[in-house]
């Protein structure tokens, strides 16, 4: 009934082309059992973990001439999303990544070392995603169903940070330009140098 058809491709288009594939899988496949839902509902960060997640989010999206991830309370958002919207396996892969940062004393090392730790975490996630993609395609070719593992830590962290920040009031209205009631559609206009993207 709707022009939305081909929901995935269209959603992807609206969200800016490439929507995070593994998260989309997590969002679009099957249902959790009630049991699973009950387990995931108990998910919570400790205060230290919340601080750590908030810090990582701020390094991904720092305060510049516009608000940063901390201003937009992205740490709380990540916790809420993991609790309410994700599978237990995703919660586990996320917590495993977080523990690795804790082991490296992330909150106490220098900013330069923090950046290096996150760059390494990103590299690790990228490699893991590549491996998962190969396993998925091998399974498909062999006619087997593939048990998707949890989304790798940094990937999940980055996706949720971007979502949490750019859909926050600060992100929507300051990092991007939000026009609640455009009132018209101009199909082809000049882009001003440095112009921000429309929110939505």
């Amino acid at each position, binding site marked *: 009934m709707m022009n939305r058809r081909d929901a995935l491709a269209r*959603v992807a288009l609206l969200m800016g082309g490439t929507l*995070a594939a593994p998260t989309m899988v997590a969002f679009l496949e099957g*249902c959790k059992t009630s049991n699973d839902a009950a387990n995931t509902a108990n998910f919570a960060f400790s205060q230290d973990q919340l601080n750590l997640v908030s810090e990582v989010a701020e390094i991904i999206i720092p305060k510049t001439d516009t608000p940063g991830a901390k201003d937009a309370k992205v740490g709380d958002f990540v916790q809420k999303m993991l609790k309410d*919207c994700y599978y237990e396996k995703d919660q586990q892969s996320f917590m495993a990544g977080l523990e690795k940062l804790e082991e490296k004393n992330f909150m106490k090392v220098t900013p330069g070392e923090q950046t290096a730790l996150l760059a390494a975490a990103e590299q690790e996630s990228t490699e893991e995603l590549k491996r998962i993609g190969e396993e998925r395609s091998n399974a498909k070719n062999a006619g087997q169903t593939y048990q998707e593992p949890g989304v790798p830590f940094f990937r999940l962290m980055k*996706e949720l940070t971007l979502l949490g920040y750019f*859909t926050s009031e600060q992100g929507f209205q300051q990092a991007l330009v939000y026009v609640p009631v455009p009132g018209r559609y101009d*199909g082809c206009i000049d882009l001003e140098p440095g112009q921000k993207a429309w929110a939505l």
Partner: protein
Amino acid sequence: MNLNTKAKQQATYDAIVVGSGISGGWAAKELAEKGLKVLMLERGRDIKHVVDYKTATLGQWEFEHRGRVDTMAREEYWANFRTGYTANEEHRYLFENDKENPYLETRRFDWIRGYHVGGRSLLWGRQSYRWNEADFEANAKEGLGTDWPIRYKDLAPWYDYVEKFAGISGSKEGLDVLPDGQFLPPMQMNCAETKAKQDIESKFAGRKVIIGRVAHLTQPQDFHTELGRAACQFRNMCMRGCPYGAYFSTQSATLPAAQKTGNLTLIPDSIVSEVIFDDKAGKATGVRVINQNDPGDVKEYFAKVIFLNASAIPSTTILMSSKSDRHPNGLGNESDQLGRNIMDHHLGVGANGVVEGFEDKYYFGRRANGIYVPRYRNWGNDKRDYVRGFGYQGGGGRQSWGRGADMPGFGAAFKEEISQPGTWTMNLGGFGEMIPDPNNRFTLSPDQKDKWGMPLVVFDAAYGENEKKMRVDMMNDAAEMLEAAGVKNINRYNDTEKSPGIGIHEMGTARMGTDAKNSVLNKNNQVWGAENVYVTDGACMTSASCVNPSLTYMALTARAADHAVNELKKQNL
């Protein structure tokens, strides 16, 4: 006069309309404007125009999960969740909780419902296309299904009529395959789409790229304004309900028009369980209704004429549940066609890619519309190894922050970059015709019932070989056209996991035909053997075309309402 007679008199109207969605709204408007006292019954709750669109003006940050689907909603809206968008937080309140309204699947069918006043007229994609002459002739020519008892010329004046009232924006193109209509000014294409149009049309004879024809007021006429409707504001938040009444819905258009006559009574929360048929008189006398908030509260309403507009599956369910000596297998079911030939449009196939250039160009406003490529396969001299055809809906746009997840890096420069518009991308998504197959059907469960005691619907449907063959072209042609338009990094897709229903265009199950032996409805949408019952929603469709169906439901409904009133005048009903 005794009490019972008085009560019956109070529950008696000239006409009963079951359902308040796109076709029900039209039936109520037309019958009321022609002077009939009309009762409109809606199974779901009332939704008042504007005031009940509770999410219509919220910012994204005001949604608990910023629009995403949480675990509990994923479980409760399990069928909606399959679509990838209808269960989203922004508009979930207008879709049905599937756990509370369960159905069964022998073969999978994605059944997406909107049980409330206005039905899915609040939720539709608003794409509005006429069928063409060949669409009505194809079944007879190919020996598929049964012949339509009407032709394009029978419906053409009614298309004119409903387009004008609804307000359809679009461009006149002079195409046989996609007849022009009564249009408001078209929306604009963006820079990338305009270039794609030029490239594709110059490289492929017979193919056109046009702006979508859509039921939005781009330039309201006086009669639109009088109903309280205003011009489209390009917010693209349509599925939350439009506070401007800018797109056609029951609430924005047909309901206020019907109410203006003083002839309409609307009762929500009323689930029609069956049509009451009088064997002796040989006609229907009324309907039986269950209060959705109190299953023990059963009422009867009476009328000379009954319009079933509950949407395809529920309208047919009502016919199936209406058994009498004269109609032992369900109303109008002498042919055993009731419940058969479920159709939808098949989609989830096409291509997308990256558009080079236009870095210094952008757009303003959020256009709730895209581009459209009318059917060209099996048209004119083109012959394929399948029958029928497909169109494309698509569009171009600049990437937003979402691309950041796939980009390496983080920090201030990264933030700055993804806060600006990214490269242009373009998508062409196919929209194919599904042919009628009597084995694609639904039945009613013999033992499982919902909380109102109504038997559960059991679906048993799948795409056939014709659809599968067509999809190969749908994918490859999209890629070929994008390539011709200079699009790079082309990604072809053909989601073979998709099931019927996902297009949310349920059609068939009580088809129109030429004879009681091959169909449920005659050429005027009257039930065979119960001629004062009309069915004018998707259930009546004899074939599916490849274009969005709602405009055709509107035209069929206005035509049938005109017929019903004329027949009443002649005392034929």
